[in-house]
């Protein structure tokens, strides 16, 4: 049984996982027993009752009420067990404890933004304390997304104009993947993030230190790290290839045709404008889908990103 779940299930890293896994294993084992029974019956009958001659006659058996009732009632009992078990687990998963630590989650095509209670924000990295219930209050800025952490066994759709929530309690420090599980367009499969579980002390330290950006980094190095961490590379390549947005390669000083027909020369002001209000001056040939970074990047970080982009030629 353990081997089966080790093979089929990701590591169990939240308090909710145990019950889900137990039911998963129960259904698998019962199904396997029934499936083997059915398969043996098919094969055995096909061999044992194989047609011997064209004149074979068969007994007239039209029905058997006792058998019909048996094979209706036994499966009914089995599925009712599964129903009750699944529903009770589901109730635990939907009712967050009152003392849960709340984090606000905003999904945008195609990144995850996390806002913490003390004003701290992070992008594509969710930081949570271990052994403490965490409740996420989620909404989307555009289309449907779905927040999915296999290691925690939690998933919830993220919907525009409505809050949905999900909660979990991580059982130990470490990192797990967050997927977007509701199809959301071109870069759906790149809408990944990490959940980083800290001890309570480390978590408090992280909240204080913020994004833990080393103040000693050069602007270019800081910019490079930010571009990677903030999800820019899901849509903008650094090697000249065209993804959902224009490439970063050799971007500075380039003439760019905009969707309104005008042309701009890309300079610091255009880049800053495109980060803070991305859909006011959209490059021709690209959809106006970039989320705004106003409020989630400081001036110093924007400067660093621009410095980094200048080096890409």
């Amino acid at each position, binding site marked *: 049984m353990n081997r089966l779940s080790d093979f089929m299930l990701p590591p169990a890293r939240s308090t909710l996982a145990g019950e889900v896994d137990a039911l998963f294993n129960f259904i698998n084992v019962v199904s396997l027993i029934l499936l083997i029974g059915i398969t043996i019956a098919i094969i055995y009958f096909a061999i044992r009752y194989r047609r011997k001659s064209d004149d074979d006659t*068969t007994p007239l058996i039209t029905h058997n009420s006792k058998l019909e009732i048996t094979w209706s009632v036994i499966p009914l009992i089995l599925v009712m067990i599964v*129903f009750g*078990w699944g529903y009770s687990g589901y109730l635990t998963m939907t009712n967050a404890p009152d003392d849960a630590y709340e984090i606000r989650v905003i999904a945008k095509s195609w990144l995850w933004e996390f806002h913490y209670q003390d004003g701290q924000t992070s992008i594509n990295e969710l930081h949570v304390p271990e052994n403490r219930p965490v409740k996420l209050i989620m909404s989307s800025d555009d289309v449907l997304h779905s927040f*999915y952490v296999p290691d925690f066994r939690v998933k919830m759709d993220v919907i525009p104009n409505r809050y949905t929530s999900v909660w979990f309690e991580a059982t130990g420090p470490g990192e797990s993947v967050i997927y977007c599980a509701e199809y959301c367009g071109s870069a759906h499969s790149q809408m990944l993030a990490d959940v980083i579980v800290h001890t309570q002390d480390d978590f408090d330290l992280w909240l204080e230190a913020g994004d833990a950006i080393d103040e000693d980094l050069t602007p270019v190095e800081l910019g490079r790290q930010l571009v990677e961490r903030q999800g820019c590379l899901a849509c903008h390549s650094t090697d000249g290839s065209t993804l959902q947005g224009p490439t970063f390669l050799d971007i500075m000083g380039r003439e760019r045709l905009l969707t309104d027909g005008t042309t701009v020369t890309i300079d610091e002001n255009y880049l800053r404008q495109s980060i803070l209000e991305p859909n006011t001056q959209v490059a021709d040939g690209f959809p106006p889908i970039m989320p705004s970074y106003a409020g989630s990047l400081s001036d110093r970080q924007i400067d660093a990103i621009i410095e980094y982009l200048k080096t890409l030629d």
Partner: protein
Amino acid sequence: MATPEPTNTKKLQVRRYKPEENPKETYLTEETGLWAWMTTVDHKKIGLMYLGSITFFFLVAGILALILRTELLTPAQSFITADAYNQIFTLHGAIMVFFFLVPSVPAALGNFILPLQLGCKDVAFPRVNLLSYYIYVVGALFTLIAIFTGGVDTGWTFYTPYSATTGGNVMMMTFGVFILGFSSILTGLNFIVTIHRMRSPGLTWNRLSLFLWSLYATSIIQILATPVLAITLLLLTMERLLSIGIFDPALGGDPVLYQHFFWFYSHPAVYIMIVPGFGIVSEIISTFSRKHIFGYWAIALSSLAIAFIGFLVWGHHMFVAGQSSLANMVFSFLTFLVGIPTGIKIFNWLATMHRGSIDLKTPMLYIMAFLFLFSIGGFTGIMLGALSVDIHLHDTYYVVAHFHYVMMGGMVMAFLGGLHYWWPKMFGKMYNELWAKIACGLLFIGFNVTFLPQFVMGSLGMPRRYFNYLEQFQAYHQFSTIGAYIMGVAFVIMAIYLVHSLFKGKQASSNPWGSRALEWQAASPPSLHNYHHTPVIINGPYDYHKPMSEFQLGIADSHNGHDPHHQKDIETKSVEADK
């Protein structure tokens, strides 16, 4: 004063009609030529036209699937872009569902077989039947135009608000599907009226074949559910063209409302796709076990039960969509209930094989594959119905594997079984049995190699509709792709021996499998009007304990001069005519 008791039975003079062997004049040799085919109202020709069309769409969508699987050999981009990938998986799903699975058994095989099994010359409304075919063609044309004018990348579910905002030609595509729905409704209507009104003398409801029962149940769903899809797509069109806020939150609409509407059709549609398959399984199991079907009423009524409960489970597609806990509980409960009639069918089919005389011909092999694969589809459906487990598995490859086991392992296997079963009746030719068995075996292996790893991948957390994926899943994806190629080879072999049989195949006898069902009392292939006589039915289609002669009766026609030896007066109780 004694008044005669009112009676709705009458005495019929019957005689035996043996089916004609090696017929010179068949529906294929009469009324030939392109124009005659295009304007035909013959249910058999329309059935073949549907068969040709769905084969074409199956080929197209199958090739798309191979492209997807090839791209997924590597975790990153290998030869198509993310946008192309998204369009291709949308088309694969939409074409397979709307243009292949929904019409496959009812419109293609059903059209051909239903009047033959009822002993009538055609369906009740032959012209409407032709109309429904052309509506299907027009719907298909709109879809093809949509593909070549921008494409569609929404997934076959057209979820809002994505479908309301994305580029491409979503409108044209939904319009195509909208039109297509009317084809489905008209076919369902035609079948219901035909089954009610055009049964041969003596063909009472308890002598109806289980294939007809399944088509009857399917037709009810088609008529009741398809209009909801039409309304939904119309609302979607209004939103996109006129900016009326219905589903798009930017306009004040509710995206989850769309999901309710969509699944209110599309879950019953799952049963439109699979229930006719159940009918084929019953026919083939009984014929190749040469034994009375076990639990006739249990199987017939469970089809109707599935049709009914199937309307009430749509919410299980939305367990993580923000539905209330109460709604989730109710939908989970009803989902488990629908599993019970499905289980009943499996057990009844197994009981039919018990103590039978089993002939392992190709159609029977397909049905044995069906029983195995569909059982897996059913068990994994139970897994997905369990609320807490579904939270983890929802929208992962586990779901992808589950519905492929139901739709391809179940429905397509049943369809192929039916195709091989009725092929001699349709074309009067036998195919090469050895090659047919090889193709069936390859298909079975290829299918499992493709989709078993997807259960594991999904449980491990691999989401569906992913163009790129994490490297830890690569081995499973590669396995899966190899399986898809094996299936491709199997279908190529099948195409070769089936086409070969049309030209070089042995002449088929009228009843090559020794079945007792009525369609086998017509010639192979049948004449233009099916029977030269009006069949009279005194036994059920699974009464293998009765001699063949009792299945070959028809109303005696004194002008033809009948053989007095076979003349037989039928007691009023044994032949109940409609009037």
